[in-house]
């Protein structure tokens, strides 16, 4: 190999890039903690999430990068911005409650200790690293899906994914249950208004069709490439919320039958397929080999609807208007 010095140079080059990326990521993190105002802190957190998705690409995990970009940065950012704006009134008296010097020093000592312990464990990770990748590759033929992460999520550890959907639904029930009694069953959030010929209405008419195509593409491609129902569903949810924010459509009352059905279709299809595995196959959530890919796709299409609706409603918040208003 005559190229050896060259590859060494490009390796150090790549390392320099990684160090720069890590430094910029940490700038965002420092700022999300240290900024005085709440909104700048939230902006720092969103930038941090965006940069973290670069880190995930660099770590060879584009599936996670997609999730981080969609949920960790985008939707969490929108959620925090909304909450920060509503809490703005309460910011002034907060300044008084800053903890004393002793507590801050103790907190700093504790944080540095924890960070140092974690850093030491990074440096002392076993070599060669334990891995399940060969096992995942060996069994990939069972589902005939090309994306190993989809394989793990939908087949090898499908129970985790099913329970995760149920956690989402439980969170939504929790959010709804915070509504005052008289608003129960009503519509979440305020009714948004905007100039129907203004720029907001324009973008809410033009962007969602594009977003829906991208969202479904991300789901469809997840069989063989990075993607999935979750990442696609997040984009759909964002587009739905955009239409609501532009005042083009109102949020549905949370007691609406159609809405409840959409919320249930994903987990129910998942459960039916799982119980089918129990009845006709070996175990709960065991897919028959011949139909594995088809069944997984059916589950994913049902789930993208549920995920989009659940995420949209989680961000819209508890009902704030009386039923029939």
């Amino acid at each position, binding site marked *: 190999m005559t190229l050896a010095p060259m590859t060494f140079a490009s390796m150090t080059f790549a390392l320099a890039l990684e160090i720069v990326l890590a430094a910029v990521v940490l700038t965002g993190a420092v700022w999300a903690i240290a900024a005085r105002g709440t909104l700048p802190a939230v902006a720092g957190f969103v930038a941090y999430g965006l940069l973290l998705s670069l880190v995930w690409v660099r770590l060879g995990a584009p599936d996670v990068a997609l999730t981080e970009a969609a949920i960790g940065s985008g939707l969490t950012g929108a959620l925090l911005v909304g909450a920060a704006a509503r809490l703005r009134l309460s910011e002034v008296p907060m300044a008084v409650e800053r903890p004393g010097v002793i507590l801050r020093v103790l907190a700093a000592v504790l944080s540095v200790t924890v960070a140092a312990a974690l850093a030491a464990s990074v440096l002392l990770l076993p070599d060669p690293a334990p891995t399940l990748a060969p096992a995942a590759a060996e069994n990939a033929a069972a589902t005939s899906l090309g994306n190993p992460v989809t394989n793990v999520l939908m087949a090898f550890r499908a129970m985790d994914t099913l329970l995760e959907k149920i956690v989402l639904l439980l969170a939504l029930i929790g959010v709804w249950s915070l509504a005052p009694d008289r608003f129960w069953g009503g519509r979440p959030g305020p009714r948004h208004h905007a100039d129907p010929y203004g*720029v*907001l209405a*324009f*973008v809410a008419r*033009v*962007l969602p069709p*594009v977003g829906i195509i*991208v969202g479904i593409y991300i789901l469809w491609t997840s069989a063989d490439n990075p993607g999935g129902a979750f990442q696609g569903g997040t984009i759909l949810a964002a587009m739905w919320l955009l239409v609501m924010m532009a005042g083009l459509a109102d949020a549905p009352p949370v007691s609406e039958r159609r809405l409840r059905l959409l919320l249930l279709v994903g987990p129910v299809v998942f459960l039916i397929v799982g119980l089918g595995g129990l009845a006709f196959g070996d175990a709960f959530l065991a897919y028959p080999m011949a139909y594995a890919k088809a069944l997984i796709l059916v589950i994913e299409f049902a789930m993208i609807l549920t995920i989009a609706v659940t995420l949209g409603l989680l961000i819209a918040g508890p009902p704030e208007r009386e039923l029939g208003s």
Partner: protein
Amino acid sequence: MSFVLDIVTITAVSAGAFFFLAGTVGLLRFPDTLTRLHALTKADNLGLGLMVLGLLPHAGSLRDGIKLICVWLIVLLAGATVSQLIGYVARREGSRP
């Protein structure tokens, strides 16, 4: 052929980086909000556009190439509307005492 494509990449990515630099300098140095906005849109539209152009020869397949162009189109559309919103916000802030 690959030599020509490499030159396209180097030229276009350098030009894109230049527009990013110009937009950032404008964002830092220009005196008021609307001129800063003007500088910013250069980085958005031209900077990213040229970067995409430069990366097209490296796209692995036709599908990847089309997706690259789609990214630019989405950013153009979103950037144009968000810039208008920023303009409204700037006017609202400006009219405040």
